[in-house]
Structure formats: structure tokens, C-alpha cells
């Protein structure tokens, strides 16, 4: 890429998927952030369900995640970091097999050129052992970090099998938010949607409304999540929520059919509905350009 065309314009011109712009209204930086900010982008990977078997849904179950890694490695400009928003593995009742799958994902993802790769669990990774095996491979299931003026919060809504964040973690979230200026640029990563997207298909977080109420106290909050294996863009108050496509199978639109069954593989359009996304974080005004990228 060259010249003054910004990255988002380039992606639009190149026809690489839809772009969603999310605006905020921050006008100043918080204390200690001056000089630390600049535009950057990160990649969100999600729901690779490593270990899933179902040729009618994905005959390349062993290859799709590797293709996604190769696609990220092939980006002209590498992202500042990669965030993997859960369901790295497909669930298994066998703890030994769970660890084998987690180890294999760790090995595959280690091929990324970008070495700043961050992980969080999905319910398939963590709900049967409260995140024990996940932590052995990938560390904490909730944490915060700061990058170029943006405060990132990873919220775990899967280690509790009832899909709750829990009182203790909500207190942790509140304490962290209390330390951020009201106009801080905040990005939240979760696996499940925090709002009731479609509880009939378990697309919700039991106490997600409490987390949203805490986040609403800040002006510039955006949530990126996985779980539903498709794009969805939704506002709760001033908070935008963006779900990502998966890397194993696509799921139907909420309530569009009686059962939540994976969309069958289309040999005429292989990998359709799968992919990863790039998120451009722009400072003035606060804005995130979401670009969906295919796997092929």
C-alpha cells in the first residue's frame, strides 16, 4: 500500500468486504494518554472450533484456521495485534482431548507473523471446567490492556457454565471503569453477546445487562464479540456491539429457522460465511472501521 489513501479507503477500493464505521464523540485524551495514541488496526479471529467434525458443514475442518492464519500473514501491513474472541476449540467431554485441541490451536496460531496475539475463551473452551484447561495454555480469561490510547477490557462470560459474568467480575469491571476518564476510548471483548440477542438460541449473557449498565457510564465504548458465527451490529444506548464471523461454520440469522443448526457447506461458494475482520481504530473522531475479510 502506498500514497495518501488511508487504509480504510484502500480496503473499500479493493472491494474487500463491507466496512462499518462506528463513531464516538471523544474530544480529549485522558490523563497520561497524551502522545500515546495514533491510528492503528487489529485483527479479530473467532470461533475456530478446532476439533469439530462434520463434512457437510465444513469439509476443510482441518484447514480453515490455517488458511485464516495464512491470510493474516499475507496482509500488506501487519496488524498491531490479533485478538481471538473464543471458541478456539470445539467442546469435548474428555479433559485430555480438550487439552490436545487447545495445544494444537496454540501451535497453529504461533505461525502468525504478529507476535502480539491475545486470547479469551468461549463456552466450548471453558464452560466444562471453569476455564482450567484454557488457562494452562493461554493464561487469564479476563484482563485489561492499553494500546495507543485505547483501553481494552476482556470480559469472561463463559467460564461460568450458566453464562454469567458474576458478581466478583462485575466488581472488577466497575473498579477498572472507575479508573478510566468518562471520555476514554474503551473497547470490550467478550465471547457471548452482552445483550439479549436471542436467548432462545442461548445468544445472551445471564447478567449482561449489569455489565452494559456499568459500561454506559462512559461515552466511547465499543464491544466486539463472537459466539454467533456471523456479523451482527447492534446498539444498546451509546454502545455499539459487533459480532464476528467464525472460522469453522456459519450459523443462521437469529430465529430465521426453527433450530440453531450450522449452515451447510456450499461447494459453489466454499468458505462462504467464514472469515476474520480487521478493525481500524481512529482517534479523531473516535471511530472503528470494521472490515470483513474472507477465508479462501
Amino acid at each position, binding site marked *: 500500500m502506498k500514497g495518501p489513501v488511508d487504509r480504510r479507503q484502500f480496503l473499500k477500493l479493493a472491494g474487500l468486504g463491507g466496512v462499518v464505521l462506528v463513531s464516538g464523540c471523544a474530544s480529549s485524551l485522558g490523563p497520561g494518554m497524551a502522545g500515546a495514541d495514533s491510528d492503528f488496526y487489529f485483527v479479530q479471529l473467532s470461533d475456530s472450533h478446532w476439533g469439530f467434525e462434520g463434512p457437510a458443514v465444513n469439509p476443510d475442518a482441518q484447514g480453515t484456521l490455517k488458511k485464516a492464519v495464512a491470510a493474516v500473514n499475507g496482509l500488506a501491513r501487519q496488524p498491531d495485534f490479533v485478538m481471538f474472541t473464543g471458541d478456539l476449540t470445539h*467442546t*469435548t467431554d474428555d479433559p485430555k482431548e480438550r487439552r490436545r485441541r487447545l495445544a494444537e490451536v496454540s501451535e497453529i496460531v504461533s505461525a502468525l507473523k504478529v507476535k502480539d496475539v491475545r486470547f479469551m475463551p468461549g463456552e466450548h473452551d471453558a*464452560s*466444562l471446567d471453569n476455564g482450567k484447561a484454557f488457562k494452562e495454555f493461554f493464561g487469564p480469561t479476563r484482563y485489561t490492556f492499553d494500546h495507543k490510547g485505547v483501553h481494552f477490557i476482556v470480559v469472561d462470560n463463559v467460564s461460568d*457454565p450458566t453464562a454469567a459474568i458474576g458478581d466478583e467480575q462485575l466488581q472488577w469491571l466497575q473498579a477498572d471503569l472507575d479508573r478510566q476518564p468518562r471520555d476514554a476510548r474503551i473497547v470490550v471483548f467478550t465471547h457471548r453477546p452482552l445483550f439479549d440477542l436471542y*436467548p432462545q*438460541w*442461548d445468544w445472551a449473557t445471564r447478567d449482561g445487562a449489569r455489565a452494559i449498565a456499568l459500561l454506559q457510564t462512559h461515552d466511547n465504548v465499543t464491544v466486539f464479540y463472537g459466539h454467533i458465527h456471523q456479523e451482527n451490529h447492534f446498539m444498546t444506548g451509546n454502545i455499539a456491539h459487533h459480532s464476528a464471523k467464525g472460522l469453522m461454520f456459519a450459523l443462521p440469522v437469529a430465529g430465521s429457522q426453527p433450530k440453531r443448526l450450522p449452515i451447510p457447506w456450499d461447494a459453489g461458494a466454499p468458505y462462504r460465511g467464514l472469515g476474520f475482520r480487521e478493525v481500524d481504530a481512529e482517534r479523531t473522531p473516535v471511530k472503528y472501521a470494521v472490515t470483513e475479510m474472507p477465508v479462501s
Partner: protein
Amino acid sequence: MLPNRRILLRASLALGVATAAGPITLLAQAKPRVIPIRALKFTYEPAELTLKLNEPVVFQLTSADVVMGFSVPDFHTRATIIPGQVIEVPMTPDKVGEFIFLCDVFCGSGHENMEGTMRVVA
């Protein structure tokens, strides 16, 4: 054979008839229908229910193996089912249609298919 006096009295009270002490205004309360449901990996027995509109029911929930959930989002009804316990959950459907009930506690490799259908008829 004469009917039992207690039964007569109970019937009178339920119908709101007058007594020597004045009019009784107790309303008849139909006893909720009890519907036993057994949860087990990864289904419910029964998995199909038919309820009548505005009919009070009590779901009597048990689990055969692990902790399960029973959730009927359209009626804001849910419970966690602990093995060895009987959990009773009342519900009165206030709309007709076909609704999903599902396990909302991640219970194993077949969890995502653990659901049933609830039909509410007029």
C-alpha cells in the same frame, strides 16, 4: 350415601356462597397442573409439551446426571436443575404459539442440541 360435610363446605366456599357469618368471596383456585420433566444428557423427557392459554402449570424438574438448565425465554421462566433435587417452577402461558425451551447451563458436548418445543393452544 351423604357427601362428606367437609367437601360440601369446601365447595360452598369455593363458589362464594353466603354463610351465617356473611358472604364469602373466596375465588375458586384451580390447582396448577404438574408437569414432570426429566433432563438428561442431552434431551428432555418429554421434549414436547402442550399447554393451554392461561392455564397455570408447575414444571417439576429433575436431572438424571449433571447440572442442567431449563429456560423458556419467551415466558421469562428459567431454573437450574440440580441432580438429586426436585425443582418446581410455576408458569402461566399468556400467549399462544410454539416456543423453545432449552438448557442454558453448558452441560457437555451435546448441550447445544438440548431443547424442546412448547405449544400453547387456546
